């Protein structure tokens, strides 16, 4: 009884629930379409192809929790991808090229953070402008797809470490950084800054600093995601990230992260991106005419979003109402 009540309470409290439910529903559907779908090899290759989006979703979630939005994460991946390939082609050892790549995306993330948090640009439009710039840089660095990676990178990425698929460690890196940050006093401050910046400010929270961390973290996650992606596909493509920011943001929202800020966590976002990944798998494996595939996956995504919204709506309203109590006036942007 006590256990059931404990479970009920915690399940109710988690914002990730709709995304988790959606994910397992699709996983079941997929199992019936494709009987091998629960084998280790399928799950590992599924994770392998989705690690980049998962990392990006974690970054996007934290920025949204901090009351912003970053739609330049995808183009950031493009820049980092072509940069990594060019560095390797120029003879840089991968042990130097990989940290440099992560450093570059972190710097791009921090630049977005400065523009939004310090110079107070609107985060949607500023990162939109930044994404134009980043796409341009990627095209300048490498106008056409090509290149190759060190064989060790591909081997490591497709192999496993201590019996755990290597790709899991790429997901764990941003996850651990965020969970550690959340345990410090800054964790609650970041949520406060996202929920109601004016009130957070009057409670002596350094709002710009918290936002800056969120953007920097998103850049860092994008870098880790890029390294995973580049090891997985083994080449460079200046357009590779073009669709990714929007996938990451959709995944975060399905995962229960509220775009009004200060609500949700990255765990939901992870399941949201797994749900998106499964849509592609199901549509590809179900023998639908190729002309119909995009329409079907779009409709599934729309239905999933509607389901997630209906699910969180009442609870979200409740949370917002309790946050509004006391006459909060400031809204994120």
């Amino acid at each position, binding site marked *: 009884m006590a256990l059931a009540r404990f479970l009920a309470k915690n399940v109710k409290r988690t914002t990730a629930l709709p995304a988790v439910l959606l994910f397992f529903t699709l996983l079941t559907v997929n199992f019936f379409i494709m009987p091998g779908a629960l084998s280790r090899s399928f799950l590992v290759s599924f994770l392998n192809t989705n690690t980049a989006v998962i990392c990006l979703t974690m970054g996007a979630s934290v920025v949204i929790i901090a009351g912003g*939005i970053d739609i330049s994460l995808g183009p950031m991946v493009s820049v980092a991808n072509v940069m990594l390939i060019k560095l390797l082609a120029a003879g840089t050892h991968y042990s130097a090229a990989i940290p440099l790549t992560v450093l570059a995306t972190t710097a791009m993330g921090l630049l977005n953070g400065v*523009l939004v948090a310090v*110079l*107070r*640009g*609107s985060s*949607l*439009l*500023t990162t*939109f*402008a*930044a*994404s*134009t*710039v*980043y*796409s*341009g*840089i*990627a*095209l*300048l*660095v490498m*106008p056409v797809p090509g290149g190759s990676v060190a064989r060790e990178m591909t081997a490591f990425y497709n192999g496993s470490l201590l019996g755990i698929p290597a790709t899991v460690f790429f997901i764990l890196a941003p996850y651990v950084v965020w969970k550690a940050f959340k345990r410090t006093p800054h964790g609650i401050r970041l949520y406060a800054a996202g929920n109601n*910046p*004016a009130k957070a*400010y009057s409670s002596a929270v350094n*709002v710009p600093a918290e936002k800056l961390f969120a953007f920097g973290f998103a850049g860092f996650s994008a870098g880790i995601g890029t390294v995973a992606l580049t090891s997985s596909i083994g080449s460079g493509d*200046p357009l590779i990230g073009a669709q990714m920011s*929007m996938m990451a*943001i*959709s995944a975060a*929202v399905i995962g229960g992260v509220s*775009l009004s800020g200060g609500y949700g966590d990255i765990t939901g976002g992870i399941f949201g991106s797994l749900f998106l990944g499964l849509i592609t798998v199901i549509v590809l494996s179900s023998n639908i005419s190729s*002309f*119909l*595939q*995009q*329409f*079907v*996956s*779009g*409709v599934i*995504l*729309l239905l999933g*979003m*509607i389901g997630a*919204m*209906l699910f969180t*709506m009442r609870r*979200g309203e409740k949370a917002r109402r309790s946050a509004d109590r006391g006459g909060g006036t*400031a809204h994120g*942007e």
Partner: protein
Amino acid sequence: MANKPRRTLNLDNIRIFLPSVLAVIALLVLGRYLSGRFLTVKNLGSILMTSSILMFATVAQNIVLISGNNGIDLSVGAVMSMTALLGPTIPMATVGEFALAIVAVMGMGAACGLINGAGIRQLGIPALIMTLIMAGVVTGFTMYVTKGRPAIELSPLLLGVSKTVFPMFRVLTLAAIAAVAALEIILRKTRIGRSLTLVGDNPRAAELCGLRVSLISVLAYVSSGAIAGFAGLMLVGYTGSAVMKMADGYTLLSVAAAIIGGTSVSGGRGSFIGGALGAIVFVVLNSILQVLRIPEGARYVIQGCLLVVILLTNNRSQKLRQ
């Protein structure tokens, strides 16, 4: 009472239009300096023609941006691509049929807008996400219906939109100018236009005034979709053929043009004329960069940096310390 809003409007007008007008003039002078053939009637005519399609897209975007509630329509380009591909399949032999075809494409766009509006208003899905998913659905639908085949056989009436009427001014350019002017008057002077502005500026106050906030913002998405549908058909009339995803780039350009034209991202402030000028700025800038043979990547970098500068000068959010 009657004087006050008019005065603020005038102040707004100068502040909104001046940067774009100066930018266009500066860019035209620069273009003349760079190439002797830049300021010819023919080139200016084609710049205006390209701008007029972007103007329609920008109007569609502007309506949604003005309606507030973090409104944005990322399905503008996808809807345009859809009507560019599906529109020409409607028979357009006579003027009557052509008019019906226009109504039909606007209806298609309006249907997409209605789904957008319903999802955003009734289910509370953020506009950014809803319209983005809608863009995917619309593109998928177009792919399914056309099986990826381009539209190449166009009715002469449709191609007629790019006929030159006066030197520099083609049919569509004149239509765009007339539409932008008419919509600006509707936005400023009529009840529905003012309601839209109030809903965007302060939805709570609008509701207290007895306005039906949900209905008005759903209508904003519906009209945005309808105008985007029209713009798509006009685009294929100009280019002469349509391929999958041909208009997708208009989504981001329309946002950029609206912002340069002085529309506020937080809603409740904006101008169609400003947006139209913003559209001209982007088209002229692009054609100059093409004259200079600047690679695609560098063009993006320049446009993006320009947009950052503009955003940081006219669209910054309030200081936390008040």
